[in-house]
């Protein structure tokens, strides 16, 4: 799973986030008041405009203070009734069709079917729920204003804030019910789709004999199920595990029956999991063994993973903090994702060999290498035992205790090296972790649905906010634009930086006008345009066009950033710290959209 940024502790995150929110909210408020005064000044003169803005602000505050839960609930109920009248439940039928198609067309023999199914179902759920609440929320209020039904509401003691909040609440309720139903169906679908059973026949199991003729174990192959089969290695007592295929394995146990020995194959392990990792920080050593800020780039444009050269002193070193004997009494359950970049093909069926060592960060004492073969695209696990061998300075070997000699003050280093010359290992900080255990998959699935719920709430609030001052179709476009800008906010931020600094390496190709010019003239984005007055004017215009987009990128929500389906599909427990941050971020946007909506509706003549 890709984790580009470290997940901060919620308690450390909330303070600065709140300050930042208050600052932006204050800035937007001042800007909006100034704009309102300017517009009113043009119509009524500066003094009257000041009076109107002042009274508007006071009126809004009084309205917000006088809101009644009963009225809000009445308006929320109305929104729910309206949604039902619009046959919103039809979307469940559409979802059922999508699930059917998923059952037919998704490949159960893929590398990681759990990830495939979960990713698909959650994406479909997210898209459908958000789309439905967006359509409901943008068209509701404009329809009421057009049909003048709003006049019988606003002539009651109803605050504009109640109208806005009631609608947000009502449509959010509809979205929540849809999400709950789709989530439940999706969960059942995924679990049913990945669940499978293998059979291990006694005839398919061969004995492994030691040199003295005794049985040292068994090996065999299971039958084909869901497009794959497992190899199995069993101990002398007939128990063991299969190899990992398609991201999972099975336990196997021999049982004696009247007709002879048979094998019981357990359910899938590792497919629908919620791993709880203890993550460390990553640093690199270059090929001479000197500290380096990063590894080698092998030319991929995305520099998430850095590479270390094989057969050299290059190493990737993770430092883990908070490692205790109490939590890991049997040793360190290291799990790792190692990407491989081959400069020559070699034996493609055979993995690239590497080693892992644990090291004392204070004394430098390290154990002897533990060898492994990198398995690409799957999570490899390695239990680093309590008792380890370490080479002494005189070339001898001595036993060291993991917690007695290696772990110091809860800190330990894990050193990864690639052993094959001219081959490379690619790793990122999140690729190595110590497994703390597993959370409940059902709970993790629910947490992931919570991420979708946050997106749905934001989309609902956004739609209602725009509908307070725009006609339905325009409000729909506006909301979609905000979502789109939010989706690309990091790109837009970098693009603007590139535009302002003139550094085309940050984002090559320029702004919208320059990009259009390059498309029309078929000029590569890597080529700098020859300086001329026309190019200067074009770049200046791009900067002007990008400025509001940059502002939007700073303000608008990124729905994809709220999603946590990557964690779920990757088999990782979704951290509560992350969910807490997302919840507060969502709340921040909801409050902002609600206030903007209430102010806009109050300033609007609903019967004009």
């Amino acid at each position, binding site marked *: 799973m890709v984790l580009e940024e470290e997940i901060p502790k919620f308690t450390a995150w909330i303070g600065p986030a709140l300050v930042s929110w208050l600052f932006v909210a204050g800035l937007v408020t001042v800007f909006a008041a100034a704009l309102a005064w300017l517009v009113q000044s043009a119509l009524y003169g500066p003094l009257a405009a000041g009076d109107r803005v002042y009274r508007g602000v006071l009126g809004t505050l009084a309205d917000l203070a006088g809101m009644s839960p009963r009225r809000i609930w009445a308006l929320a109920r109305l929104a729910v009734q*309206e949604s039902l009248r619009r046959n919103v439940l039809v979307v469940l039928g559409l979802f059922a069709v999508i699930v059917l198609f998923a059952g037919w067309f998704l490949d159960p023999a893929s590398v990681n079917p759990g990830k495939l199914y979960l990713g698909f179902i959650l994406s479909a759920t997210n898209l459908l729920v958000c789309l439905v609440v967006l359509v409901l929320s943008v068209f509701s209020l404009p329809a009421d204003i057009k049909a003048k039904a709003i006049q019988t509401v606003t002539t009651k003691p109803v605050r504009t804030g109640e109208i806005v909040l009631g609608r947000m609440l009502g449509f959010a309720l509809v979205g929540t019910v849809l999400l709950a139903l789709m989530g439940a169906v999706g969960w059942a679908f995924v679990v049913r789709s990945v669940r499978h059973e293998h059979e291990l026949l006694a005839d398919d199991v061969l004995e492994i004999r030691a040199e003295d003729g005794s049985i040292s174990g068994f090996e065999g192959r299971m039958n084909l199920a869901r497009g794959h089969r497992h190899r199995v290695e069993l101990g002398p007592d007939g128990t063991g595990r299969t190899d990992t295929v398609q991201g999972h394995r099975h336990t196997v146990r021999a049982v004696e029956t009247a007709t002879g020995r048979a094998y019981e194959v357990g359910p899938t392990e590792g497919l629908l999991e919620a791993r709880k990792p203890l993550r460390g920080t990553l640093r690199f050593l270059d090929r001479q063994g000197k500290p380096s800020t990063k590894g080698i780039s092998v030319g991929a444009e995305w520099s998430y993973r850095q590479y270390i050269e094989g057969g050299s002193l290059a190493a990737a070193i993770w430092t883990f903090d908070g490692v205790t004997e109490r939590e890991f009494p049997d040793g360190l359950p290291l799990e790792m994702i190692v990407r491989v970049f081959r400069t020559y093909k070699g034996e493609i069926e055979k993995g690239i060999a590497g080693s892992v060592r644990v090291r004392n960060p204070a004394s430098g004492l390290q154990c002897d290498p533990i060898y492994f073969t990198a398995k690409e695209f799957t999570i490899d696990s390695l239990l680093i035992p309590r008792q380890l061998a370490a080479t002494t300075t005189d070339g001898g070997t001595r036993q060291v205790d993991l917690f007695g000699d290696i772990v110091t003050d809860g800190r330990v280093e894990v050193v990864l090296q690639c052993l094959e010359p001219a081959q490379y290992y690619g790793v990122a900080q999140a690729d190595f972790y110590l497994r703390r255990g597993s959370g409940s998959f059902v709970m993790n699935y629910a947490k992931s649905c919570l991420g979708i719920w946050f997106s749905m709430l934001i989309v609902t609030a956004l739609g209602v906010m725009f509908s307070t001052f725009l006609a339905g179709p325009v409000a729909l476009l506006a909301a979609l634009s905000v979502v789109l800008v939010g989706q690309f906010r990091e790109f837009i931020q970098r693009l603007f930086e590139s535009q302002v600094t003139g550094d085309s390496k940050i984002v090559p190709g320029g702004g919208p006008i320059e990009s259009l010019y390059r498309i029309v003239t078929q000029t590569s984005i890597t080529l700098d345009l020859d300086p001329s007055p026309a190019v200067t004017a074009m770049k200046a215009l791009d900067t002007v066009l990008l400025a509001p987009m940059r502002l939007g990128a700073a303000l608008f929500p990124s729905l994809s950033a709220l999603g946590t389906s990557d964690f779920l599909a990757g088999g990782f427990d979704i951290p509560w710290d992350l969910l807490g941050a997302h919840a507060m971020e969502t709340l921040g946007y909801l409050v902002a959209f609600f206030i903007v909506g209430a102010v806009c509706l109050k300033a609007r003549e609903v019967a*004009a």
Partner: protein
Amino acid sequence: MHADPGPSRGAHDHDVIVAARNLSKTYRDFWGRSKKVALKPLDLEIRRGEIFGLLGPNGSGKTTTMKLLLGLIFPTSGEALVFGRDATDVSKNERIGYLPEETYLYKFLDAEETLDFYGRLFDMPPEERKRRADALIAMVGLARDKKRQLREYSKGMTRRIGIAQALINDPELVLLDEPTSGLDPIGTREMKDLIIDLKKRGKTVIMSSHLLADVEDVCDRIAVLHQGELKELGRVEDLLRVTDVTQIRARGLPAAAVDELRAVLQRHGGADIEIGNPTTTLEELFLEVVRDTEARPGRRARQAEKN
């Protein structure tokens, strides 16, 4: 324009329920340019307990005035005060009932749900909502149709549920925009009776209409608007009184007495003398026929038989 002191001279200021001071409205386009002057500066006071009529042809500014008083639109200049508060102050709505020109209700709700919904908007507790809704549904005669969605209602039924929602909070001030619009003569009569009943219960009613007979029948005072401007304001009987004409009505006079009267009137210089039998209104005739038909089903109405 007439200066009008209001219905009760010397009344205290707290008796003024509605006041418009230099109230005007100009509709503007997107760029702020003046598009239409809907209401020229208007000064008006409406006092507690009166039925006030806003009279004028279509586009005269009646509905604009009403919307300004309700805070549905904002004045271009001047101010509108309701219960002494600015018309845009929503708290005034606690004491107001409003029936719009068309009954703009949620058609996917039934009558009970509609009244329950509006009752909730007044923050009324459930028992009170139920009690008020039942009473109002019975009052407007929709008890048998209370479970039907409003989309299935006729225009008259929609109008009746509209008046019920306007009265859900037992308001002190009722604003009725074209209250008899779309009603048949019976419905019109019932509506007018209801308005008079509201007055009897101490309510203040403001109604707008271009149906002169309706206004004349129920209103204490009227304001005549034309092209957004107030043209007349005063008590109905004062405005309608023809001061240089004398009307004499009597029942059971013989023909000789009529001739004698005519002679007396001529002797005193009376001009354009008319003496004859008065005619009733078409509305009265219609209601008489309906009442008679309902009392004697299957028979021709007595009035018709007489003719």
